[in-house]
C-alpha cells in the first residue's frame, strides 16, 4: 500500500505543484494518476521515491513513512519505469535487465539468468540479450524498461507515462500485455498518464487530478464514466461516456443468444440458401469456429474463402456489453457472433437484444 497524507509540494517561487494530496494506492492494485499537464501527477509520483522531496505531508509505504528512510535504499525497493525507458546505452539488454539484482548484490551470472527469464516474460526473444538499446525499437526498449524494473521483484512499481512514447498500435499491445502481466504478478503500482483512455483501460482505480495539484476524483473507471464528481472530471473523461461505460458492464448471461444455422466452406449454393436467415449465412470451420458471413444469392458454385465477408467482430459470451453490441453492429447480417472461451460458436445476438438487456440493468450510478 502506498499512501499520501496531506502531501504538498510548493516551490520557492510560490508555484504549488501538489496541494494537500490524500490518496491511497491499495496493495496489489494498479492505481492511475491522470490529469492535464501541470496537474502535478508526475511530481506526485516522483515524491514517492523521493526524487522530489515533499514540502509538507507524509507518504507511507506499507504504513512506514518514507521521509525517514535512506533515499537510495527506498528507491531500491520500488520498481521504476519511465517514458523513454532510460536504458543504459553502453550496456547490453541482458545487462540492463540485470541492473537491479547486481546493485542489490547478486552475482552477475545469477542476475543474467534471471534477466533472460524476465525478457521472455515481457515478450523479448533471447536473441536480443547481447544487443544494445539503440538496436531496439521504442516499444522493445520499453519492454526492456519494464523487465529491468521487475528484475528485483519489488513489491511496488512506479510508472511514469510508460507507454506514451510509442505508436498507437504498439501502445495497445504493450497495454494488453502489461495487463496480463499484472494479473500474474499483482504488484502495487502507481502509474502516471495524461491519456484518459489508457487510465480507464488499465486502472483498477483512477485518480483524476486538476491543475494546481488537487485531487478531483478517485474512483474505479466505471464510476468515473457513470458518475463523474464535477464538470471538470466529466469534461476530462470525455465524450461517448455512455457507450464507453458499457465496456465495464459484464453481459453475465443477461442477453438472449439466438441459435444460428451454419455452413462450412465448400457447401453448395443450395445448402447455403437453405440455411441462410435473411440474406446472410454464417460460415464456420470444422471446429465450429466462425470464419465469416456469406451471401448465398451471390454464390457461383460452391462456397469458397473469397466469398466471405470478414467485417464482423465476434464477442466472447463472458465479455462486456460494449463488445456484444459492437459484435452486432459490425456484423453485415446485423447478428453479432458470440463465441465461448475457446472461440467456438455459441450463437448470435441482435443489437436490439443487447440494448434491451442494457435497459433492464439499473444505471451503475443507481446500482451502487
Amino acid at each position, binding site marked *: 500500500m502506498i499512501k499520501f497524507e496531506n502531501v504538498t509540494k510548493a516551490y520557492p517561487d510560490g508555484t504549488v505543484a501538489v496541494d494537500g494530496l490524500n490518496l491511497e494506492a491499495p496493495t496489489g492494485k494498479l492505481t492511475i494518476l491522470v490529469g492535464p499537464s501541470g496537474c502535478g501527477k508526475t511530481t506526485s509520483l516522483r515524491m514517492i*521515491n523521493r*526524487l522530489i522531496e515533499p514540502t509538507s505531508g507524509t507518504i507511507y509505504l506499507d504504513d512506514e513513512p518514507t521521509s525517514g528512510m535512506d533515499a*537510495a*535504499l*527506498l*528507491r*531500491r525497493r520500488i520498481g*521504476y519505469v*519511465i*517514458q*523513454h*525507458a*532510460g*536504458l*543504459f*546505452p*553502453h*550496456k*547490453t539488454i*541482458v*545487462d540492463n535487465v540485470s*541492473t*537491479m539484482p547486481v*546493485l542489490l548484490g547478486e552475482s552477475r*551470472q545469477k542476475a543474467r539468468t534471471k534477466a533472460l527469464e524476465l525478457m521472455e516474460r515481457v515478450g523479448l526473444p*533471447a536473441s536480443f*540479450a*547481447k544487443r*544494445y*538499446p*539503440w538496436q531496439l525499437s521504442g516499444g522493445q526498449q520499453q519492454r526492456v*524498461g519494464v523487465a*529491468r*524494473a521487475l528484475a528485483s521483484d519489488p513489491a511496488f512499481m*512506479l510508472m511514469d507515462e510508460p507507454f506514451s512514447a510509442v505508436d498507437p498500435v504498439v501502445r495497445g499491445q504493450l497495454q494488453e500485455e502489461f495487463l496480463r502481466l499484472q494479473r500474474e504478478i499483482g504488484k502495487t503500482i502507481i502509474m502516471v498518464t495524461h491519456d484518459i483512455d489508457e487510465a480507464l483501460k488499465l486502472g483498477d482505480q483512477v485518480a483524476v487530478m486538476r491543475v494546481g495539484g488537487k485531487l478531483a476524483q478517485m474512483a474505479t473507471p466505471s464510476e468515473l464514466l457513470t458518475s463523474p464528481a464535477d464538470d471538470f472530471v466529466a469534461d476530462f473523461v470525455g465524450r461517448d461516456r455512455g457507450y464507453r461505460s458499457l465496456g465495464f458492464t459484464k453481459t453475465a448471461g443477461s442477453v438472449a443468444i439466438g441459435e444460428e444455422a451454419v455452413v462450412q466452406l465448400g457447401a453448395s449454393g443450395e445448402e447455403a440458401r437453405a440455411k441462410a436467415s435473411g440474406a446472410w449465412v454464417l460460415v464456420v470451420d470444422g471446429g465450429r469456429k466462425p470464419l465469416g458471413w456469406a451471401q448465398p444469392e451471390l454464390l457461383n458454385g460452391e462456397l469458397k474463402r473469397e466469398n466471405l465477408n470478414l467485417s464482423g467482430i465476434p464477442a466472447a459470451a463472458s465479455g462486456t456489453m460494449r463488445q456484444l453490441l459492437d459484435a452486432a453492429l459490425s456484423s453485415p447480417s446485423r447478428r453479432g457472433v458470440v463465441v465461448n472461451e475457446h472461440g467456438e460458436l455459441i450463437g448470435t445476438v441482435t443489437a436490439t437484444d443487447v440494448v434491451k438487456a442494457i435497459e433492464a440493468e439499473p444505471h451503475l450510478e443507481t446500482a451502487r
Partner: protein
Amino acid sequence: MNYLFDPAHWSGADGIPTLIGEHLLYSLIALAIAAVIAVPLGIYIGVTGKGVFMIAGLANALRALPSVGLLILLVLLISPAFPSRMGYILPSLIVLVLLAVPPILTNTYAGVRAVDAAAVDAARGMGFRTMKILTDVQLPCALPLVLSGVRSALLQIISTATIAAYISLGGLGRLLIDGKAQNDYSQMVAGAVLVALLALFFDQLLAFITRRVVSPGLTRRTIKSAPVAEPVKTPVTV
C-alpha cells in the same frame, strides 16, 4: 632525407632516439598533468552545471595563446627562481599543459552533458547513489568524447613540444632549431617528418585504445554475435 638515414644520427646523447625519448617525455608528462586538471573539472562542470562560463570563456581564451611568446615570458619569470634546468623545463610544461587543457575540458564537459537524461533519471530512480551514477552511467557514456578530447590534446602537444628546443632543451625541436642555425635543411626536414610521424602514430594508438574501451552500444558499431555467457566488449568489425 639524407640526415634521417645517416646511421651516425641514430645514436649518442643527441641522436634521434634520445630526441624522440625527450620529446615523448615532455609530451606525456604535460598530457598527464592536463588530464588530471581538465577531466575532473570537466566532470564537475558537466554534472553540476556550475562554472559553464569557464568552458566558453577561459577554455577558448587559452586556445588563442601564442605558445612561443608565452614560453619566453614564463622563462623570464620562472628561471631566476630555479637554478637548474628546471627553470626551463617548467615553463615548457606549463605551455603544453595550457594548450592541452581546453580540448580535454570542453570535451569532458560536453560528454557528461550529452549523457541521456532519461538514463541518469532511471539510475537515480533505481537507487544508484550519486557516485555510482557517475562511475557506472555518466563516465562510460561520456568516454568517447573525453577520449577524443585527449586525442586532439596529445596531437597538439606533440606538435608544439618542438618549442622546448627554443630555450635550449631537448626533443625533436632540436633538429629544427639546430638545422636552421646550421642552414642544414636536411636536418630540419628530418625533424619535421619525425614530429609528424610521432603525432600520427599516437593519434592512431589513441584511436585504437578508444575502440577497445568504448562500448559498442555508444559507437553503434555492429558486433558479431558472441557466446551468451561472455560480455561483449570487443568490437570485431568497425
